[in-house]
């Protein structure tokens, strides 16, 4: 087992009011190595809080997140950045590329921060380039790229550290339909090479490319679907139906 999330709880409380907002409530699930999981939910369902907790950007109120035997919730503050850099890869909704760096340097960024040797950085990049089809982009500046290209670069940056887990936050939200399709196909391919991916999304199309979909609402996970060997389009129908049911019936 790669990732074990157990009894996660997150309560937000503003300093001056007694009102508490429960963002996550007793969330437990686990992820096997090589899995591709989508966590689906409406906005406000707690999925972003969950992702932030997994990404160590946020600390849970209760519960634990164990990645490869290490509990992320007890890592010291000053070790967190290093942990993120070495164990996790990030793909963001709005790409988060640095304008000041060329595409190549953007991809190198986490390795440079980890004081990796130049030779190794170049070797790893060489391996990624054909997979992501970014050979022509390397010497450009981020502002010269289209959204789809930017996201491919962001994926390269996430993969170059060879992370145990790639976390993707609505990776298709800023892309048009065609680019979204291409990107989702790409993520599937990457997953096929054995890379574990955890994606958060509200799009049924995006979720339908995953191997397993967890549904989250009001801070609880209460349903999951396996894709098995179905076509993405078939799987999407089931996801859509599930979502409709979820929204239709009050869970409480």
């Amino acid at each position, binding site marked *: 087992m790669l990732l074990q999330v157990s009894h996660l709880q997150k309560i937000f409380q503003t300093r001056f009011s007694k009102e508490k907002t429960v963002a996550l409530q007793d969330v437990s699930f686990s992820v096997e190595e090589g899995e591709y999981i989508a966590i689906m939910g409406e906005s406000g369902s707690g999925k972003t809080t969950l992702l932030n907790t997994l990404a160590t950007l946020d600390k849970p109120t209760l519960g634990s997140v164990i990645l490869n035997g290490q509990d992320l919730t007890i890592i010291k503050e000053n070790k967190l*950045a*290093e942990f*993120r*850099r070495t164990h996790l890869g990030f793909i963001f909704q709005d790409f988060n590329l*640095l*304008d*000041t760096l060329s595409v190549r340097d953007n991809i190198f960024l986490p390795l440079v*921060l980890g*004081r990796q040797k130049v030779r190794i950085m170049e070797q790893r990049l060489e391996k990624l380039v054909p997979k992501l089809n970014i050979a022509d982009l390397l010497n450009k500046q981020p502002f010269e790229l289209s959204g789809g290209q930017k996201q491919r670069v962001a994926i390269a940056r996430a993969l170059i550290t060879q992370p145990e887990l790639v976390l993707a936050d609505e990776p298709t939200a800023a892309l048009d339909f065609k680019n979204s399709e291409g990107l989702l196909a790409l993520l599937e391919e990457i997953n096929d090479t054995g890379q574990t991916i955890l994606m958060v999304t509200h799009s049924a199309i995006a979720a339908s490319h995953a191997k397993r979909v967890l549904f989250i609402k009001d801070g609880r996970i209460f349903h999951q679907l396996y894709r098995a060997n179905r076509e993405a389009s078939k799987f999407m129908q089931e996801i859509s139906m599930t979502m409709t049911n979820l929204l239709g019936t009050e869970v409480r």
Partner: protein
Amino acid sequence: MFYVKLASRNIRQSISNFLPFGLSSVVMFLMNLMIATILFSPSLKKLPGAGNFAMLLGLGLTVLTVFATIFMIYSYRFLLKRRTKEFGLYNILGLKKRHIVRISILELMMMFLATVVAGTVLGIILAKFLYLFLIHLIGESYFDLQWSPLAVGIVTAIFACIYLLLMIISNISIHRQSSLELLKNASKGEKEPKSRIILALLGLVSLAIGYYLAVTVVSPLDALTKFFIAVLFVIFGTLLFYMSFTIWLLKRQKKNKNYYYQPKHFITVSGMLYRMKQNAVGLANITILVTMTFVTLATTVGLFSSINGFLGDYFLRNTLINVNTTQQRSIEFIDQVAEKNGLALNNKIVYELSNRLTGAMNDGRFENKQNLANLTAVNFMTADTYTQLTGNKIHLRENETIAYPAVGRFHESNVRFWNHTFKVKEKISEIRNFPSTSMMASNWLILIVNSKEQIQPILDDASKAAGNRYKMGYDTTISADLTAKDAKKFQKVLSYYRVNGNDPIKRINDSETKIEQDDRGEAKTIAGMPPTFERYDDMHEQMTSFAGGFLFIGLILGFTFILGTALIIYYKQISEGEQDKRSFEILQEVGLSKDEVRQTIRSQVLLVFFLPIAVAVVHFGFAFIMIQKLISLFGTTRFNLLLLTSIGTIAVVAVIYYLIYKQTSRAYYRIVER
């Protein structure tokens, strides 16, 4: 009315944008008002040397006005840039550009009124305070600084012009942009700047020329003429330096992969490179302002602080009497007059020099040319006089001389006057009981020769070359200590006598000929000159008032320059903070810890902090050579004191600069870490 409401609401709501602009406006107004108030104050005329002082103030006011104009434009463009989005929104929501322009003009008018009111009120309060300070510097107590409506009126008019200019700028820039452009943020992507080797070379060459001009200055007057040319070259060179050379350097660092791909260098180098193009101008401005602050303060502080030393060098005793004839006749005459009037001259030092030859010294050849660049005054001294002053015996052959360059440099092995050539046997750096400085702006060279027989032919040739109708000869300087009462009386008595070389000394009945040392017109010389009379105390008072006034203006200008620097740095920090905010968020998500972020920011900030200071110090190092010469124009030649005051000034300015940087960096951190 609607627009007025909108405009005033705009100012109130985005006060954080308007505040720096308003602040710089008020401060510039205040500084101009200060100088104008003193300039138009009726008491100014009562000051000794009021003409000089008024001229200095006028110059100061001009410099400040130019500076204020440039600076206000800079601040306003910054303000406009931050508000483009707001204006774009108005445009989309249905306001015509004409209306937007009207709003911005109304805003400017409100700012103008606020500036005048706040500036005048603060000005009245500050004037009293500054006045006390000025009086302390000048050492006068009857100076009364009044609030003058005329000064307020003139400065208000100046600022009305500046604001009119701003309105035109706002009109043009709003009309030029399309509404979509207005709405879009200014954060468009930018291509990495190309390194332009030609510009880099041009910048270096320009700097080199400016520096070369500074280094090769030979005399104070030369410095005066070359100073402004050198300044222009250096300003131009600085701008090009930041625009190209630094980019080239950073690019080279980037090419070195083992250096570049290290966490600290990686972010710093790429960030600087990305920013260099847009910030070259800002950095150049800061550098030039800092250099200007250094130069202004060092010059004025140096001038002020070296008065005492200079006068100490010049006045061997508290009174100098110069008589235009030989030593023997002079002493006889002076002693006789003193005895008759019952005056006591104590601790007398007497020496005789040939009349002064003024011309150009080229490779040891004296030419009868009044060339400003290497103007040199030459006086001959006999070996006997030298021995009498110092007690040292010297032996010189007929064609030998000992050179004493009291002001300026002299390295030649031969020195030639028309067809008389002397071999320079020795060069000395001081003569005991002899002044080591002069009141002249030019270089001053003393040549010690065997006897008067070698001197007279040269004096005759000089007289012929200048077309003079009188014969050149010798004059004698008597330094002695006199009480103030005796000195006054003596000066009056002496003013009735006329002396000209070997002619008999005459006594006349009216003394109206002005007693000024350099007032040696031909007719007057032939008629005979009264002995000149100089007092330490008089000179001290005069120079203190002059240098004090100079220092006062220097301090005001220096303060304004520092303030300008502060505001530019503040603007830079704010705009960079907004640009960098996102970058640092991303860096943290990708795996840079908060501490590392802080370290990176610090190293980036320090680099930007040190670059202008370092460049400014280098600039100043070269300017120092010129300043030294320029100051000696006013009679100061003390190298060590000037060096010390300069270093002190740089240290003080650097500390202030650092404090400013620290304060404004806080603004940066706040934005980035929010």
